[in-house]
Each structure stands twice: as structure tokens, then as C-alpha cells.
């Protein structure tokens, strides 16, 4: 997030796109309600009539996969009607004119048939966003799990810069992270092309900094997960070490994933429980839960927060950092970390944005990075005064919308979009073991529009079969008027209804995130 969670409560306008905030970030959603109580407006774009839409002033029932068209059309309207913040554009950004030219044809009338959002609704979204003083964008996987992920986010950045909604309180672009520490693990370079702190290995400063701590080392650019299973299949990847991830359920095209894992010569899985993925492992390393270890989590607003051990690790499990430490030692490295605080000391040295964040400083309240030194209070809002880019200017980008990725067909006429429910988390490795959560959502389901259900003769709670070009699964029908027609929704938590057996291998060309939100399927009553 460029801004903080608390600031949501003071916004004038909140534009939520691709985020079921009340269900997936209920406490963030309370800030939305707080803002609404103070008179804020809420605009929501989502293919499902999520609970937020009950409170929204504007709603766009957007077709999955077309966010970019809608955002570009909003930009078009703002420029066409002269609602842009020219001062901000002139003083703080580059490449405005090129971007402007790129959206010249993106009229709301152009976007309407693509997005299924009425042109007038798009105009309303654009005007309200541009003319609100403090306007925040909130988004999650509804924007990112598409082939247009990177371009859509760049377009949202265009939208925010165009209207000067960056670098001030209660503005900005705010991805709500789906996991407690996904920000932290990204910061610490669980990415194939960075070292910790988003430092490219090829930059000279990076080498200089890290070789001081690590000695001589080499660092090749890695692969993203979605590429790895192909490499296994091709026989190029021989071993895999999976920590806290369950790709058999969470990765697209389950049959392909399983095929690759079976073929893989050597697999290590490190997790709390024996997951569906661990079934294919040669070695399973039992890891400890959050209750059994010390360390930090970095949350969605870049706040580094301390966690403390409450109980000793159960059985022979160990915290991840101890497992890694021992592994490094057995591989002959000269390391001996005694505590997570000692690891943080090294992070302070190597990652400039974390330089001032020590365990000592975050005993009570976490600090938001960037925090360059030990007296720095942290940075609640990014890009104040200047952008965190070389030269300090924001860069407008060109993000053309084209029909790509999965398309419906006569054989597969429905769009399936996936997501989560409040009471389950990811592949359910933890939450499905808890009775109270299990009771709320014991099994998978297929949300389908009343009219579609009627046409297909599907009744409430009936088992239906959902089939894509990759595979076929069954789940129980949940009939509703809160989803677009010809669109179905399925949660991906349930191994008995493994949605990712259906999803495909279309990837965002830049960051390779799979297009989990759009799969062409057909649906029929299970015989």
C-alpha cells in the first residue's frame, strides 16, 4: 500500500476494484465503514454483488478479465472532461502526453461491450474519482490474477497520478495483501530476480553491499513458480524445495502440476501439516506455526511487526529460520544465526529500506518501511513530494487493452472466477482442521446466477459438474442473484473440489502470475 490502513477512514472516495474486502479483509473493511459514516462515497467494481455493493454509491458489474479496459476508459473520460490535476502532472510526472495519446480511443462506449459496464457508469466512476479530494484505490487479486495484471496496476497508477491522488493522506494505490507476511516475504526476495530489498543482483551497489556480508557469491536470475513446473516436465529442473506452499491446490492446471511433481527426481516440502503437495515429497520437514516462533511479519501497509513465541514447537517441528540455518550449515556454509533478532541485524545492514527497523524498536508498535536509519520514524505514505524512482518523477505508462488469455467458447460458455470465503484460508491446510471454520464452509460450492441455474435445470445444493479444457470437478450449486449471468464463482480452498484442476496456464507476460480469475467452463448437473 502506498498509504496506511487507518487513512481509509478519512477518505472522501474509496474505489474498490477486485477486492471482496468485507470477507477477505474484514478489519480493513471496518475502515471503509468508518469513512462511510463520515460521509465518504464508495465505488465498487466486481463481477459479484459482494457485500460492499450494499453500501456502494456506484457499482460496476465488470466482466472478469476486463479491468484494464475500464480503467483506461476512466482515464479517457477524465482527460476528455479536463478533470486531471495538471499541476501535479507538470511538476511531478513524465511521459503524460504519450499516455494521453494511448487512451484517445478508449471511450466509455468502447469499453461498454468489453466490460459489460454501462458507459454512463464508467463516466460516473471517472468523474467521482477525479473530483474527490482524498480518493483511495483498494484492490486485490481481482486485479492481479489476470494476464493484464501488470498493465492494470500501471493503469491504476496512471489514474492516480493523473488526478494527483498520490503522496497525500487518504489517497494512493493500495493493494490489500492476502497473507499476513506476503509483503515481508517479497521484501526479503522470495522473487526470482531480486536480492532482499528489491535490489537487482546485477546492480554494482548490490554486489558491493552483499559481498561485504556474504563474501564472494554468485546470483543467477531464477524462475517464477509458474515456469518451474514446465521446466520439471522438460527434465531441466531436478529438485524442488517448497516452503509453506501447496501448489497442488493453489497453482493453475492441477493435472499438470501433479504430473510434474511425480516426474520430479527430488522434492522437499516444509510445512505445518502434511499437505496435498507433501504427498509427493521425498523429504518432509515439519515446520512450526506462528505460535511457536519469534520473528517479524510485514503487513499490507509495509509495517514490520514483531511476533513472539507463545508455546514451544510441537513435536519435532522447528521454526523455518532454524531449519534453514541448519541446512546451510550442513551444506558447508559458515553461518550460525542464534536468533531472529540477529538475522534482523543483517537485514538492517543489507536492505536500505529496513536499515532502521530493529527488534528493539518494534516491541510495542511496528514501523513502516522505508526506514533508512535507527532514528527514522518510518514512512506511512510513499511518494510524498517526489516519487521513489530515479529522478523523483512519476512515469506514465502505456497499457493497451487487448483480448488475451482465456476466452469463452461454445463448448465452454461460462467464465469461472475463483476466490476465497471468510472462514477458510487458501488451500485450507490450517483452517479446514478447525471445527468452527469447517462448520461454516464445509465444502466447495459453485455460485451461479438464478437465470443460468434455471436454464440449466440446476437446483440449490445440487451437485454440479464444472468442466474446462484442462479437467473436470464437482461441487454443490449455490444459486444467487449476486453474480453476473454467464459467470460462476468457486472458492479454491477445497481439495474435493479442486478448482485449480480447471484453471489454465495463461500468464501475465511480465511477472508470470497465472490468470486464475478467468477460466472458460461449462456446467451441468452431476448425474
Amino acid at each position, binding site marked *: 500500500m502506498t498509504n496506511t490502513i487507518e487513512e481509509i477512514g478519512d477518505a472522501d472516495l474509496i474505489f474498490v476494484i477486485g477486492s471482496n474486502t*468485507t*470477507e477477505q479483509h*474484514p*478489519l480493513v*473493511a*471496518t475502515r471503509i*465503514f*468508518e469513512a462511510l*459514516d463520515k460521509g465518504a462515497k464508495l465505488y465498487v467494481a466486481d463481477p459479484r454483488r459482494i*457485500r460492499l455493493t*450494499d*453500501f456502494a454509491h456506484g457499482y460496476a458489474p465488470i466482466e472478469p478479465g476486463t479491468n484494464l479496459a475500464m480503467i483506461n476508459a476512466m482515464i479517457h473520460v477524465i482527460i476528455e472532461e479536463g478533470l486531471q490535476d495538471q499541476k501535479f502532472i507538470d511538476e511531478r510526472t513524465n511521459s503524460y502526453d504519450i499516455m494521453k495519446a494511448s487512451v484517445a480511443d478508449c471511450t466509455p462506449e468502447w469499453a461498454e461491450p468489453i466490460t459489460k459496464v454501462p458507459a454512463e457508469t464508467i463516466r460516473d466512476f471517472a468523474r467521482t474519482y477525479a473530483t474527490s479530494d482524498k480518493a483511495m484505490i483498494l484492490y486485490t487479486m481481482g486485479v492481479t490474477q489476470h494476464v493484464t495484471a501488470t498493465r492494470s496496476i500501471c493503469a491504476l497508477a496512471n489514474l492516480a497520478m493523473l488526478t494527483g491522488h498520490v503522496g497525500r493522506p487518504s489517497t494512493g494505490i493500495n493493494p490489500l495483501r492476502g497473507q499476513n507476511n506476503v509483503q515481508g516475504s517479497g521484501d526479503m526476495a522470495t522473487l526470482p530476480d531480486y536480492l532482499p530489498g528489491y535490489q537487482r543482483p546485477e546492480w554494482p551497489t548490490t554486489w558491493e553491499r552483499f559481498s561485504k556480508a556474504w563474501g564472494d557469491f554468485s546470483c543467477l536470475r531464477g524462475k517464477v513458480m509458474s515456469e518451474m513446473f514446465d521446466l520439471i516436465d522438460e527434465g531441466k529442473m531436478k529438485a524442488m524445495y517448497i516452503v509453506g506452499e501447496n501448489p497442488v491446490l493453489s497453482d493453475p492446471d492441477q493435472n499438470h502440476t501433479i504430473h510434474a511433481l511425480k516426474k520430479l527426481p527430488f522434492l522437499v516440502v516444509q510445512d505445518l501439516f502434511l499437505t496435498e503437495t507433501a504427498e509427493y515429497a521425498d523429504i518432509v520437514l515439519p515446520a512450526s506455526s506462528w505460535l511457536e516462533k519469534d520473528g517479524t511479519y510485514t503487513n499490507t501497509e509495509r509495517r514490520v511487526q514483531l511476533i513472539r513465541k507463545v508455546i514451544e514447537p510441537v513435536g519435532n517441528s522447528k521454526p523455518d529460520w532454524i531449519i534453514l540455518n541448519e541446512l546451510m550449515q550442513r551444506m558447508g556454509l559458515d553461518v550460525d544465526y542464534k536468533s531472529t533478532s540477529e538475522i534482523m541485524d543483517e537485514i538492517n545492514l543489507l536492505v536500505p529500506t529496513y536499515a532502521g527497523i530493529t527488534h528493539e524498536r518494534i516491541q510495542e508498535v511496528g514501523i513502516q518501511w522505508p526506514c533508512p536509519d535507527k532514528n527514522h520514524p518510518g514512512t506511512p505514505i510513499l511518494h510524498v513530494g517526489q516519487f521513489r524512482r530515479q529522478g523523483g518523477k512519476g512515469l506514465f505508462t502505456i497499457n493497451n487493452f487487448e483480448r488475451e488469455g482465456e476466452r469463452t467458447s461454445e463448448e465452454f460458455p461460462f467464465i469461472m472466477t475463483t476466490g476465497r470465503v*471468510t472462514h477458510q484460508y487458501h488451500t485450507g491446510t490450517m483452517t479446514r482442521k478447525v*471445527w*468452527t471454520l469447517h*462448520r*461454516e464452509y464445509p465444502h466447495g460450492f459453485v455460485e451461479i446466477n438464478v437465470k443460468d441455474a434455471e436454464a440449466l435445470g440446476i437446483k440449490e*445444493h445440487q451437485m454440479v459438474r464444472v468442466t474446462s479444457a484442462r479437467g473436470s470437478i464437482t461441487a454443490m450449486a449455490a444459486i444467487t442473484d449476486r453474480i453476473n449471468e454467464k459467470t460462476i464463482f468457486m472458492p479454491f480452498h477445497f481439495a474435493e473440489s479442486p478448482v485449480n484442476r480447471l484453471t489454465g496456464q495463461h500468464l501475465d507476460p511480465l511477472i508470470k502470475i497465472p490468470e486464475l480469475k478467468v477460466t472458460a467452463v461449462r456446467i451441468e448437473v452431476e448425474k
Partner: protein
Amino acid sequence: MKTPLLYQLEKSKLDLVLGRWNQTIPVYVPSGKGKDISLLPMVDFPRTEAYINLTLPVKEMMFEQKEALFRWDRDAGGVKVENLSNQHAGERILYGVRACDTYGVGYTDHFYLKEFEDTNYASRRDKVFIVAVNCLKAGPHCFCTSVGTGVFSTTGHDLALTELEGFYLVESATAKGQQLIEAAADFFVPVSDEFAGDVSPGTLLAMKEQLRQKVADSFPLKMDLTNLHEDMARTFNADFWLDEANACIGCTGCTNVCPTCTCFNVVEENRDKDHGMRVRYWDSCQSDHFTRNAEFHNPRNALSRTRYRVYDKLKYIEERFGYKGCSGCGRCTDVCPTYISIIDIIHSIQKEAKENPEPPAIHQITAMRHEIFDREINVRNGLFTPDVATITKIELETPEIKRIYVKYDDPALHKNFKLNGQFFQITVFGEGEVPISIPFGPEESDEFDFCFKNVGTVSNILYNLKVGDKVGLRGPYGRPFPYEPLKGRNLVFIGSGVAMAPLRTILVQVVDNLQDFGKVVIMASALQYDKVIYKDELKLWSELEGVEVHYALKDPTDQVKAHQGYINDLLPDLDLDWSNTTALVCASPKRIKEVSKDLLALGIKPTDILTTLETHMRCGAGKCGHCKVGSHYMCVDGPVFTYEEMMALPPEY
């Protein structure tokens, strides 16, 4: 409560007293800062006086978030069960409890210890000493003075301390309180008329009352709740409930922090297939599926569950138990992440009742009733531990309904058996428990039989057990069909499919004593004749003088003479004096209503239709809260109700 004994304690001596007590019994004191205050052992944690209230009510010391009920172990010789209700921390002195929470304890004592005694609660409660320290300051959401439970403690405490000028006025309310006084007798100066110097008990109590008034006056929040129940009867369907329901995310925080929330769920925790424990966890009516029955039927939706909590706290508990269900602690409002506030809701109720009242809902004008009976239960090891029985015979009544015969492993249990209930809780070890109606009569027997369909998780497994397998039995529970009042009347038994089973318990008594009754009509309905249970018995009964048996089937065949269609069609042709007829109807709530409507049209009185309502019962004894409808526990107040009583329940069953 009898007049409390009064003592004075110098303020500076307090820590000495706590230290003295702690030598023999661990003393728990408020510790922490800000709003994060817990009761913790004084040996390890510093005591604070800077707190308005404890973060969680003291209830958690007597009704723990998780408690073991019993363990079971299976070996070649059978199954052994062991009651675990006494597994807990032992004696504890809880110091610094506020009036809203002592009131909560007053209520939970009444709730758990009366009717069927909750063995777990009793064993913990016995070991707990409660020392209340009266509040001198209110928090922003405190409203105990409005509900009338505070500001000073009136019940639930053993000792109550009020800080006057440099000393505490100490009131000892119980024998346990006296035990505490005696343990530190040198610090407590008795106040009595005999020893009165400058201060008499009257003066001290007047000082206390003056202080109480002053504190009460300082409350930022004051509400007049005199007409709240009437107002609630007129706002049951008000629009604002939908707004509240829309805001609720079902996090269950409100019920977790409530001093009067008593619901729990029972859960099986198995070590392996032969060893396990049944435990209970706090549960919440604010979970969407708290009330879900087998086969997806859920009598409450988001709106009715949100509304239910408020009605339960402000109305239903008081109607049934005579205690305030809300002690005014304000915690539910403090913790709600979406700013749902019981205080705002009270305001909405009052505003709506004034500006936009509905005609009072019939289910909200039930007269106040506090009928609590102490009840007997035929188990050896306390309320929640079943007795082991063996399946001796299994018969297939219909293609999907089985009749199983079971025998207690301990024959004495059969010998002492009294049929004073309507259903049993049957345990499948390691899988769970399911309530099943009693179809047998009171005649002495060394065996029980039950009829059931495989519709739920547990009944599916029970369905597949074999002769010789072990089950657990608890019961009988529930208000049964009355027998004596039926004498001299015509009786119409109407049972649909497996629902003939609950009627059989009374039917077998009636056919054995036909001389005591008028005409007896039995009406069995099902889709096909194959799906009718007790076929042979029905045939036998139909041959008795004064008994008629009718069938109403969807697809009749030549197996039996039957009407094609509903039971309702047959009613007008029964040659009965309806004013002297009682109908016993057992079916789904929807069918019960349809049949009853026709019966009423024929001239039967709503009090002469008897029916059973089987909702999601978990404990069977009015404790777990799952089957509560309005102020009624289906398992204790029902499941047998007259039609009149049934229609006076909120439509949430």
C-alpha cells in the same frame, strides 16, 4: 441473599491480605495496562488498580473456552468411558471483579446449576472465590446502571469491596466469603452494632449508598429501559435490523466477551480410531451455521441471527430465567470491528417503537415465566458422559430407515429406567452424538429400540453400525407427550414417514389401554408404502376394536388400501367429535402447520393439537444453546408443544 456481614479493611493492608490468601489458594489479580487487563496469578504478575474493567469477563474461569467432557477407549472387551468434568485448575481466588461480571456469574450459576446440573461448571465453580471491587468510574460503553445490574455488585460475589475514605468497606455474602475473612482475620475489623464507635453499620452503608449514587450519576450513558420489552415486541420486523445484519461479519467477538453467553459446541477429538475425547468449546449464535440442521435446513439467516443475539440478551434470557441477560458491561460494543453497538440498537428500538410501531408480534408478548425445574437424569457419570450400550439387533424398517435395538452394558440402568422424556442422545464413539426420539413405551424392558433415517453426519455412521457395536446413551431428555390428559378423548395420530417413531411411545400405551380412550385414529403418510415404518404393528392395531388406521401415500400400490395424496384430505371424513379430540402430529414444521390449519377448521382447539419440534439439539439438556427458539429451549421446554405454543414461538425453527 441474607444481610451481608460487614468489615473494614485499611487500604494499605490490601496487599497483605492478598498475600495471606495466596499462601494457601492462588490469588488472581487484574494485571496489564490500558484496555488489556487480565486476571493473572499475583505471584507472577503485578496488580493494577488502573482499570475500568477486565478485558474478558470472569466467566472464563468457570466456563473455560475449551473443556474436556469425557474420554473413551475401545479395546477387545468393549468401550470404557471416563468423565473428565473435574479436570481443572483447582481453587482460585479471583480479585477485582466488577459488578457487571458478578451479576453475570449470578446468572450463569442459575443457568448451569439449575434444571440439569452442568457437571463441568459445578466442579469449577465450587473452587472459585470471587472478590468484587466496586467501580468508581464508568467506561464509555458502560450501562450497568441502565439495566440495573450495577454499579455496585449485588450478586455472584463472595466478598465485595467498596473503597471509602482510606479504607474498604468489605461485605461478606457467602460462606466462602467468611472463609476468606477468617483466613486474614487480623486485617478485617468487623463492623457491628456492639463494637460501633464512630461508625455504625448504618452509617457505613449510607456512605456506600451515597458513593453508589455519585458514581451512578457520573455515568456518561443513561437509558430508560422500563418499556424495553414492549418496545421490542413492536420492532421485531423493523428495517434497522437489516442494516445491523449487513454490517455484521460474523466474527463472533461479541459473544466471546459476553458475561452471560453460555453456548458451546461439542466436538470429538480422537487420538486414533479407538481412543478419543469429547470436548466442548465456546460457540456462538453469531456464526451463520450455529443453527444449521441436517440437510441444509437453517432456521436463521444473517438478519435473524443478528437480531436473535439482541433479543436473547435483552429479553429472552429474562423471560425464561428471571435474570437480566445483559449486564451492561458494554464489551460487545467495545470489540465489534464493524461498530455494531447494543446501545445504538436499544436507541433504534426505542425510536422505532415510538415513531413506527408494528402490532406486537405474538411471539414477543408471551407472559414472563421463570419456570426452572430441577430434573433427574438417568446417567451414572454426570450430564455429559454417556453410558455404554451394545447394539443387539438391527431391522430395516424401510429402504432408508433402520430400527436398532440396544442394551445398556450395565443392566442396572435398565432396571432403574424411568420413561420421563421424549428423546435420547446417542453417541457413536469418535464421531459424535445425535438426538433420536423415543419410540418405546414405559413398560419395563431390558432393551431400547430406535428408528432413524441416515440424514446427518453422525446418523449416517450410526446407520452403518453392526450388531455387537457399542454406542453411548444419554437420556431420556425433553418434555414428553402427556398421557393422563389424553384419557377419555378421541385421539388422532398423524405421522409422516420416520416421524411415526416419536408418536409410537404414546401409541403403544394407548393401544394397551383402549378402554380409557374414545376413538383412536392412526394416519400414516409417506411417498410409498415401502417407506411407512412399523407396518406390521399398524396392521395389528388396525384390527383392534376402536382403532382405525389410514394411509396417505403419494404413489399407492396394492400392498395396502391407501388414499393417494395428503393426510389432510382424509380428515373431514373421520367421524369424530372434534371438540373432544386431541391430535398428535409429527412432521416437518411446514407440514405440521398445513395439517393443523385443516384440523382447526374442523373445530379442534389449538391447545388440543400436540406436536414435536426437532431442531438442532446438541446437548439435550438446555445448556448448549443450539436449539433455542425465542426464550424456549426445544430440548427442555419441548420438543413436544401444543400448536398454540408452537405458534407463539418466533418463526426460527
